[in-house]
């Protein structure tokens, strides 16, 4: 089995988000970066589990600058066998998808794993784009994955339910909660990660037709209006007359 796991680097959930003065760029000063949680907890761990039972190789791929290598090493410490970094500024979903697809084309991966979305752009775009570039089936929001020979069985989250599907390898998926349990890298993993191969690849040119041009912070909440616990009719009145939500 040859498995590719696409990992992105995002600000930690608890980071304070701010932008430069004219709102055109994210202000990274003081922000702690992490591996996108869904890529780490679900996609990468399930790929490693499959490799452990079925044999093969797990490749972790990041599209990003050299500064992302700490995150990439963490993927190796969790269990990826080798890593690839496509050396560029990951400008947008279309650009990133093009880079991933160009690398994966010809590498004959059996399964290409994505997270369900990145917690910075909240796009859920890249996986579907890569699947289309490579003309492969795509199972999004997969919460369960088993492989039997050349056939994969999956469950995917749909609104208010679950859909069970089967698909022949090769294919692309995005991983959601349920696919695996988070793994904390152990000392041995961290040590061996230092010597595992990390290949650098040059990007291909691509012009993304959708660009984030302006960022802003949501208007601050005007402050909570407190209602006394024995005044529930008043709360209902406010929700009806003032907030107009009932």
């Amino acid at each position, binding site marked *: 089995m040859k498995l590719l796991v696409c990992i992105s680097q995002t600000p930690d959930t608890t980071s304070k988000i701010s932008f430069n003065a004219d709102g055109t760029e994210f202000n990274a000063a003081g922000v702690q970066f992490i591996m996108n949680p869904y890529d780490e907890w679900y996609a990468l761990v399930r790929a490693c589990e499959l490799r452990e039972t079925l044999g093969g190789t797990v490749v972790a791929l990041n599209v990003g600058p050299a500064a992302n290598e700490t995150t990439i090493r963490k993927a190796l410490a969790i269990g990826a066998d080798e890593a690839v970094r496509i050396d560029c500024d990951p400008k947008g979903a279309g650009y990133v998808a093009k880079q991933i697809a160009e690398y994966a084309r010809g590498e004959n991966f059996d399964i290409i794993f994505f997270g369900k979305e990145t917690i910075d752009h909240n796009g859920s775009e890249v996986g579907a784009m890569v699947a289309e570039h490579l003309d492969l089936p795509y199972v999004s929001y997969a919460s369960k994955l088993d492989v039997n020979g050349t056939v994969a069985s999956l469950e995917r989250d749909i609104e208010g339910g679950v859909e069970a599907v089967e698909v*022949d390898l090769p294919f692309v998926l995005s991983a959601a909660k349920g696919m695996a349990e988070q793994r904390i890298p152990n000392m041995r993993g961290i040590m061996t990660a230092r010597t595992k191969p990390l290949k650098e690849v040059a990007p291909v040119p691509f012009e993304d037709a959708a660009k984030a041009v302006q960022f802003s912070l949501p208007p601050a909440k005007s402050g909570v209006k407190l209602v006394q*616990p024995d005044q529930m009719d008043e709360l209902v009145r406010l929700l009806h007359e003032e*907030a107009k939500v009932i």
Partner: protein
Amino acid sequence: MVLVFAESPRGQFKKSAFEAVTYGKKVADALGTSCAALVLGTVQDAGEIGRYGASRVLHVSDAAFDQFDSQSVAAAIAEVAKNNGATVVVLGHTSTGKSVAGRLAVRLDAGLVSGVNSLPSSNGSALRVKKSVFSGKAIAEYEISSAVKVISLMGNAVKPEATGSAVAVETISVASSKGRIRVKSVKTQEGIVPLPEAEIVVSAGRGMKGPENWGMVEDLATTLGATTACSRPVADAHWRPHHEHVGQTGIAIRPNLYIAIGISGAIQHLAGVNNSKVIVVINKDAEAPFFKAADYGVVGDLFEVVPQLNEAFKRFKANS
């Protein structure tokens, strides 16, 4: 032309389809063009979607589309978009939309912005749209400069407006409807509005003490016609089913009204609910972080407050 993909899983339009067509019509009006809806698969009354503002309803009735596969759906939408000269394609940011939008953008050489929550503004031939980013902590405006633009619309971002009339359905066909994914089964909870579509959500956390106390939460939800949700530790402890878990690791929702009962308001929880229009927090601890994100708050013991709130809603319903 603005082409809207109107989802109809298991033969019925989704709420997101009505929202997407309502939105598509507004975009079309702003651009001085018309709006058409595309329906794929078996549907009882495809023309109904016209009432939300589509002047044409194009229906590919091929039953192969009843089994969802993002590849065949994206190919069909792209073909219809090309044949009709669509300049904007709109989908819902749903489980289906998320699987299809990226594929469609590649097929159409289009710029894509997903999870959009506002009407676009024009900048020459480019369009500008806004969406929520950083898990609700910021807003980004995107510019799409390609000839064809793909937009997926966040749930509950526009209210469906059935102001038009039903439209005569044009039955069309597409080159291929064959997918490669084999759908084995689909399980949905009957009679419950799925969380991402719910307008009112009643959610509870560890303050409930145990699963045996959830009756009052369900009663309140029943009174309000709401869907129930929970915090992550509650789902992890199996007090409630996993599909109710909202937050960074669970489902992200944006109902009109979110009532949080005995939930502290950790940042990972807020990441999934902070786009709710109005938030009501019931917590006995006046210092609970959730109050900072709330519109209305009740500092008190939930075991007393929730039944009283339910009675108050019942009185309100009886009088209105």
